[in-house]
């Protein structure tokens, strides 16, 4: 299905950050703040699938109960289904459908980030990275990769005593990056609702800048090649994982036995892809 070009005013916001930082709680609180400007809002929340069973527990929505009764707020819980990068393989398509369905705002909550889960950067206009005091080592992850993609850095749980230190730490990190670093840290609490208005305003300013710079407002054309590459990789993975074909079995056995390098195996497998018949039971 091809749904494209309905960028018509639909804004997209990515929310990422370590597990337990309060991403879901923050989206819940933020939506209340933003609804007057974005009456039709969709939220996509992503949780990891179990690599063993393929099942998933999707619990983000528990924090968003107050919006269940509002017919203008659409929430959908997605499982990663083996996709790395913090979102799901189908997130982009779902977002396109929601935009085509006249949503004013689409918010995407990623799985708790490690270092490489930055795919949301390609999907959304504005990215916020949520931190909280007391997450300790998680700060490493923020340093390593996620900081790069953040348009706005948030310290949530500012009602807790250590929040000021976490904010100071992040500010110091930004400071070290040099003069062309203009980002700042916004402190919020979903409990006291402190800072939520300021955060909503900061997001609004970012959206306004996008509207002024139309090349940024349309990230989709720019990254189409990357998206194609990723879709090809996903498909190839499916084919190899699900196909019953003796030629693939031989490659697998040789790699397992140390007779063939993975790289050489991959080259041979790519040559075979066109001929494989995958067993399809994907629900995406």
């Amino acid at each position, binding site marked *: 299905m091809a749904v494209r070009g309905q960028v018509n005013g639909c804004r997209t916001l990515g929310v990422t950050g370590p597990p337990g930082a309060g991403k879901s709680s923050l989206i819940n609180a933020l939506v209340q703040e933003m609804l007057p400007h974005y009456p039709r809002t969709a939220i996509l929340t992503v949780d990891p699938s179990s690599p063993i*069973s393929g*099942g998933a*527990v999707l619990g983000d929505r528990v924090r968003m*109960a107050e919006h*269940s009764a509002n017919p203008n707020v*659409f929430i959908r819980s997605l499982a990663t289904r083996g996709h790395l990068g913090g979102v799901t393989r189908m997130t982009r398509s779902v977002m396109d459908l929601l935009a085509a369905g006249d949503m004013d705002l689409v918010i995407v909550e990623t799985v708790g980030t490690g270092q490489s889960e930055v795919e949301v950067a390609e999907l959304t206009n504005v990215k916020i990275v949520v931190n909280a005091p007391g997450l300790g080592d998680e700060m490493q992850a923020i340093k390593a990769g996620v900081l790069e993609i953040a348009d706005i850095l948030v310290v949530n749980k500012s009602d807790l005593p250590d929040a000021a230190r976490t904010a100071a730490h992040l500010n110091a990190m930004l400071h070290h990056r040099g003069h062309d670093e203009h980002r700042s840290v916004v402190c919020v609490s979903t409990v006291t609702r402190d800072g939520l208005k300021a955060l909503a305003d900061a997001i609004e300013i970012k959206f306004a800048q996008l509207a002024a710079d139309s090349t940024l407002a349309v990230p989709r054309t720019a990254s189409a090649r990357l998206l194609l590459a990723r879709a090809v990789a996903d498909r190839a993975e499916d084919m190899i994982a699900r196909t019953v074909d003796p030629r693939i079995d031989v490659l697998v056995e040789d790699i397992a036995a140390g007779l063939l390098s993975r790289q050489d195996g991959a080259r041979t497998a790519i040559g075979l892809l066109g001929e494989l018949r995958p067993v*399809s*039971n994907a629900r995406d």
Partner: protein
Amino acid sequence: MQDNAPNPRVLLTKSFIDSHDRAIATIALALRDAAMEVVLIDYEQPEDVVTVALQEDVDIIGLSFMSGGQVETTQKIVAELKRRGVDDLPLVVGGVIRPFDVPPLEEAGVREIFRGGAPLADVVATFQRLAKAYRGYA
């Protein structure tokens, strides 16, 4: 035979007033381990359960009751399912279900009642069977 059915999606829910989430967590993990995708919510109004079930495109709803409202809440949800044209979406209940709750729950069209003590494997199998039947994969 190759099973081509997609993994079922399940909505497990309890009232937001009900603070006991041990039972629901146990079932959720068992269903996950059986390859199902389990959406969790605590509803404020019974009608919200149907809204969420539709947004999440689930194949079955499981209601947990640890305090009151077993019959009344279930009836409201059933009525809302009807009103929104999805009365065939299977509904099961579990938790504290007293003997006198059973007849009105059955009357309301609940597909299965799990009273304490049912083996987890049976609970999982029932979810599996009802969900797949709903999708037309059984």
